[in-house]
């Protein structure tokens, strides 16, 4: 197979989706092995694709292949694939995490209703995400983009018997849809200016200055709106924490490798356009910083394990956008990859906890689980350290890269804001770990019934923990070389005019980064050690206003609810009044009444007597004749 056939990566899981959706019910064990096999095949094929890419002249590709889709007049629409380092990195991340999630789900979803359907949609989800990252034109991107949205809707609302799950699914779908409209407008605007959907055609046109500055800025901002919705950036972040209603493996997949990173991927892919459009990068940076900071504050006050992880995901996505805002796709993609591994690990770890404690995810009832669940506890510990940014784990390297690049591009103010967010990340991650795994159990009953999960669940945890430790090292030139890449990740993925650059440790930033992580960890340790919450409760009681503000997520949900209540419902009320009284009563009923009334009166003209009709005819002829004579003169 050559890399030109890379579409098979998406086609195989998509095919399995249809098989499972139609025959899954009848297959033994719901056909879960087919799902694992499909994703496993894609996982293996992604290495072949990588091999082919490295076999090209400068090891960077791109390898492209496309077919003519349709021709309208002079306009020719081609659909195809574009394999370059960004695509291959995404392939690796998506297939690895998806494979782990699939295996984990066999244990986690055991005995659930619609078991086969879960695996079916999982395949479609992965297929559409793979399609998204290899698409060579914005139209195909948009199609896959929407498919990803549909799959997330189906999976978040998987437990549709639960009202909160259907609400969350709708919320996710509608919130991202607001952004998607922006994306569609952006795509149309770019097409109108360049006459092509081809991503690289558009990038070349933008770089050659064929598109006016203002026009380019506006259209790329519309595209970015779509990215913000999909990647849950403030103010579109509200759907993501609610998306925790889905089964936990889905949370891991959505928040690590698929759905939410689609926005990051598309921004990275179109980064050259962002650079050409004046001010676009600043917008990206500011959105990222705002998100990282706000969600950091919110996560401090959450008590649901998955909610904390959800807000940390939003925060880390903010980090990725900040990284992209510096104009270096490599750094954003690097953080995306490391984050995917340790966040999938954390989510699956929390899934293991939830499974073991019979669906308990409130920290207030957990604690002291490490001894009961040694493997989950240890891997979760590794994941937490990676998220907190402790060297030499994966999260440290990618965060460090972000800080260095951010300082170069925007200066110290941005670094300070992000440092605050990073410190908070370390704090709430430590808090999460201590309150779940350390100290004494808060609920004796739950604790007694807890047991370590089986190997089908701990296996993926261990593999991901391994990646969470090692994935960061690909930043180094020698390690990248050793893996067969042209060098470190920043020498593999780079924007053309920046050129590859070899990573060197900036000891100042590394030290500062370690200090931030340490402050966060020790502050959390001081507050929660032994699962005591006296100190934090005292702090919360002293500042009830601030605590409530964090606890209630800065009132975003309330604000949106109010806007919907006042604005949308108010407007709907007016429209409905118009519909009811003007359109219905006056327009529809009114015309019916006029017809009925006039019919009621005029029916008496129909006497049934032939002489009357004959008279009418005769008078009519005479009348018309006279009228004709008068008119003619």
């Amino acid at each position, binding site marked *: 197979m050559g890399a030109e056939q890379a579409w098979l990566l998406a086609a195989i899981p998509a095919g399995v989706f249809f098989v499972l959706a139609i025959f899954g019910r009848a297959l033994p064990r719901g056909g879960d092995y087919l799902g694992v096999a499909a994703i496993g095949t894609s996982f293996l094929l992604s290495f072949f694709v990588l091999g082919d890419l490295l076999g090209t002249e400068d090891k960077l590709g791109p390898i492209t292949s496309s077919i003519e889709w349709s021709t309208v007049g002079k306009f020719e629409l081609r659909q195809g694939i574009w394999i370059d380092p960004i695509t291959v990195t995404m392939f690796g991340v998506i297939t690895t995490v998806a494979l782990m999630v699939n295996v984990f789900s066999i244990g986690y979803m055991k005995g659930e209703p619609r078991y086969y359907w879960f695996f079916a949609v999982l395949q479609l989800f992965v297929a559409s995400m793979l399609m998204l990252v290899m698409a060579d034109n914005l139209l195909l991107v948009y199609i896959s983009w929407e498919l990803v949205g549909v799959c997330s809707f189906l999976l978040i609302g998987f437990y549709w018997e639960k009202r909160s799950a259907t609400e969350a699914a709708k919320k996710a779908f509608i919130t991202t849809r607001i952004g998607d409209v922006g994306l569609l407008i952006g795509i149309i605007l770019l097409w109108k200016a360049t006459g092509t959907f081809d991503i690289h055609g558009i990038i070349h046109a933008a770089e050659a200055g064929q598109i006016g500055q203002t026009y380019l800025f506006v259209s790329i901002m519309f595209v970015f709106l779509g990215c913000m919705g999909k990647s849950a950036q403030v103010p579109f972040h509200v759907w993501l924490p609610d998306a925790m209603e889905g089964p936990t493996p889905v949370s891991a997949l959505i928040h690590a490798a698929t759905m939410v990173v689609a926005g990051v991927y598309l921004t990275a892919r179109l980064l050259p356009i962002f650079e050409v459009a004046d001010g676009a990068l600043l917008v990206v940076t500011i959105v990222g910083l705002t998100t990282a900071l706000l969600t950091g504050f919110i996560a401090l006050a959450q008590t649901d394990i998955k909610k904390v992880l959800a807000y940390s995901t939003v925060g880390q996505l903010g980090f990725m956008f900040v990284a992209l805002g510096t104009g270096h796709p490599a750094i954003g993609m690097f953080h995306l990859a490391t984050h995917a591994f340790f966040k999938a690990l954390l989510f699956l770890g929390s899934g293991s906890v939830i499974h073991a404690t019979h669906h308990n995810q409130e920290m207030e009832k957990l604690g002291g689980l490490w001894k009961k669940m040694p493997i989950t506890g240890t891997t979760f510990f590794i994941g937490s350290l990676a998220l907190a940014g402790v060297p030499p784990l994966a999260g440290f390297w990618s965060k460090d890269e972000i800080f260095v690049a951010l300082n170069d591009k925007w200066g110290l103010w941005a670094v300070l804001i992000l440092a605050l967010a990073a410190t908070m990340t370390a704090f709430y991650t430590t808090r999460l770990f201590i309150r779940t795994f350390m100290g004494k159990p808060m609920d004796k009953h739950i604790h007694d019934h807890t047991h370590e999960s089986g190997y089908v669940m701990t296996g993926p945890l261990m593999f991901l923990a391994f990646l969470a430790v090692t994935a960061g090292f690909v930043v180094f030139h020698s390690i990248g070389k050793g893996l067969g890449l042209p060098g470190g990740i920043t020498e593999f993925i780079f924007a053309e005019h920046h050129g590859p650059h070899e990573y060197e440790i900036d000891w100042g930033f590394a030290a500062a980064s370690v200090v931030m992580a340490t402050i966060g960890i020790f502050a959390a340790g001081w507050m929660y050690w032994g699962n005591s919450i006296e100190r934090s409760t005292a702090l919360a009681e002293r500042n009830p206003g601030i605590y409530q503000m964090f606890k209630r997520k800065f009132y975003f949900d309330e604000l949106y609810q109010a806007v919907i209540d006042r604005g949308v419902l108010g407007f709907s009320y007016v429209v409905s009044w118009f519909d009811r009284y003007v359109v219905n009563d006056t327009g529809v009923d009114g015309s019916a009444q006029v017809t009925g009334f006039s019919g009621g009166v005029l029916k*008496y003209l*129909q*006497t049934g*007597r*032939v*002489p009357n009709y*004959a*008279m009418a005819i*005769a008078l009519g002829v005479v009348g018309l004749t006279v009228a004709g004579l008068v008119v003619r003169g």
Partner: protein
Amino acid sequence: MVPLENYLVLSAIIFSLGVYGVLARRNAVLVLMSIELMLNAVSLNFIAFAAYLDPGKITGAIFAVFVITVAAAEVGLALAIVIRLFRNRATSNVDEAAIMKW
């Protein structure tokens, strides 16, 4: 030769008699006969115009033959209806056959 106007006046008189009969008579058979009068007036017109304005051709005569044919068919149909009416309602008065209404 008799001038054309005479034919037209005669035709108009016959037609008016027909109209009067249709409007004033109550017996269905008499109404039908009045209609025949009107049709004959029209035929007379056709023949007269054909003979005066377009001599040598028989277009008008053909039309007259058509009118007679249609009139025959119409009378056949209408008389059948009148017979049915009389059988059912024991009357041939058009004023009494007034149930076809709202």
